[in-house]
């Protein structure tokens, strides 16, 4: 392995990750500087239960009509994000636990997951380009982030066998893109995962307090926990 690749896999990644962490801390501080208002009403349900339900909504495709009616879209979402997780894991395994990729089934598993995400990425890009609704709202960041991910997936598929002796190109591309990602993500739509807990928490807390989240079973009236119907 060349010295350049070694630095790229280690020091550069740590520097980029540190930068990302700092920006995220600032971003969280920015979010927290906005005020919230206290709910002054008697509760019907439990805010914490609502927030929990809302946060777990991501794993409940039946909960929303939008995903219930489009199981294919939900499946794409799962494949895409599992691929992202696998590709991120690859950036840690290669420098810190390279032995894992000595096992061919593991490499094939990672390659399969990331390749599936690559295909979904292409499908999503085509959808974004073809669908008039998405075209009307898409910004350069939306396209760039998606293209960047697709290219990163491609590099990851080639890099995870971790065979620098066969040529360092894929590994250099993979880690260079990863470093760029770590720096770029906090400023792009990709950092939506940072906001997800907030949006879902506030929505769930509010609707949980009102007894709307989690939804009661049809045919059964929620048992009042507050003072309202005691």
């Amino acid at each position: 392995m060349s010295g350049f690749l070694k630095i790229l896999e280690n020091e550069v990644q740590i520097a980029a990750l540190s930068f990302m962490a700092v920006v995220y801390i600032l971003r969280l501080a920015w979010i927290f500087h906005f005020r919230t208002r206290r709910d002054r009403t008697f509760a019907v349900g439990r805010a914490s239960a609502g927030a929990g339900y809302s946060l777990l909504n991501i794993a409940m495709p039946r909960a929303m009509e939008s995903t219930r009616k489009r199981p294919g879209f939900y499946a794409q979402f799962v494949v895409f994000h599992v691929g992202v997780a696998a590709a991120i894991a690859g950036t840690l395994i290669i420098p810190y636990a390279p032995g894992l990729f000595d096992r061919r089934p593991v490499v094939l598993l990672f390659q399969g997951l990331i390749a599936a995400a690559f295909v979904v990425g292409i499908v999503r890009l085509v959808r974004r380009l073809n669908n008039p609704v998405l075209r009307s709202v898409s910004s350069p960041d939306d396209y760039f982030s998606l293209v960047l991910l697709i290219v990163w997936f491609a590099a990851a598929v080639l890099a995870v066998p971790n065979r620098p002796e066969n040529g360092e190109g894929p590994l250099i591309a993979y880690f260079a893109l990863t470093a760029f990602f770590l720096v770029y993500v906090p400023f792009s739509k990709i950092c939506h995962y940072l906001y997800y807990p907030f949006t879902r928490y506030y929505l769930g807390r509010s609707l949980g307090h009102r007894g709307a989240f989690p939804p009661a079973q049809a045919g059964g009236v929620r048992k009042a926990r507050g003072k309202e119907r005691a």
Partner: protein
Amino acid sequence: MKRRKTGPSGVVEAPLDPRTQARAKEEGLASVEAGRLRTYELGDNSRRFLELLGSRVSRPLAVSLTACVHCGLCAESCHYFLARPDDPTMTPVWKADQIRKIFKRHIDWTGRVAPWWVKAGSPRDDEDLNRLKNIVFGTCSACRRCTYNCPMGVDTGLLVRFARGLLTELGVVPEGVFNVSRDQWETGNQMAVSEQDYLETLEWMRDDVRTELGDDSVEIPVDREGCDILYTINPREIKFDPRSIAQAAKIFHLAGASWTMPKWGWDQTNFGLFSGDDKLGAFVARNVYEAAERLRAKRIVISECGHGYRSTRWEGYTWAGFDQKLPTESVVVTLKRYIEEGRIAVDPSKNPDAVTFHDSCNIARSGDLVEEPRDVLRRVCADFREMYPNRRENFCCTGGGGLLSMAEYRPLRLEVGKIKADQLRATGAKLVCTMCHNCIDGLNDVIKHYKLPMRVVQVLELVSNALVLPAKGA
């Protein structure tokens, strides 16, 4: 803000008509003089808009403004887009983006440095603000169906109300919104019902119930202290259809309830919810809460009204900074309790026609009542049938968000009412029941426009029909 061509709906270019506002100013209305009701002024409104935006964004709003990933899943949850599938400007994401792009340009990070990269932009002049007005008031009923269908939990309904509130501060509002806000500020109720009209209508309804029951002890008490129930209503009940007051009075009488209506603070509706004006919301809600305190009532009961219920039961306490002290419930919950406790007897065969139920958005999605009205209807109707989708997935009646007061958006509202019409038609019911006065008018418009063979009723009417009256002298 990038200029765009007139949307296919034509709504986006509806002009701002500030003449009524100018008249209110000339007349020196108290609410205008005191600065509570804002009127449109020529000047740097864009700058003022941005100042308001910066000072009013809350944390739940900020994260909803930043979290959208433009996945487009919200599109098919919106009845506007379902009825106009070739028009991307009808999608929740596009509407929300018109607010989001301003937030990004002035408050968020990337948009301030590289606005073109994230499609951030500013309103340049009053024309742009007017266009935003038409989007947030004219193409969204703030039903929050998209909120429930957003994987990220982006609350587009909240964003729309927020933007409406900023525009209301500048007087950049549809004439109807200004008129109703003016009436509620000036008279304490949104239809400018005078105290005399109010009291005379209550007496009239009392006399009707006395005649119907042959019982002169029936009362509609006003400002009676120490009652169990403070009953609050929608001004529409006084102005257009007071039968619901008579129905409530009859049921309260038969149930042996201790109840009263207040002379002031009887309007449970709240246009602040629709205009986004938290000050108006606080004023109206506080009127009700203070009436209950003044009369030492033990419970506030809200007549059948979707936005009134949401405002009085949920949002109003926060707007008014008023900690809830009394149980506050819909009259439908009261009816359910009376039936379950045997305080009134009902016979479902007295309502033989097929009845379906329309969930009010403000009650089902932004409130807590979904099964309660169904429990009542199953007990008082012989043939209750659901419409699909229902409960929290129901579609708006098309009259939500204050749209009934905005005549300029009526053609689009009726066009997108096709979704509701299809839902209603599929039930085969003769009656559609709803616990909301806005929904009554919205559904009546849809029924008339799409020539559906059905009629709108409320829960009170069906319960009243189903009552088994005690034998005279018993």
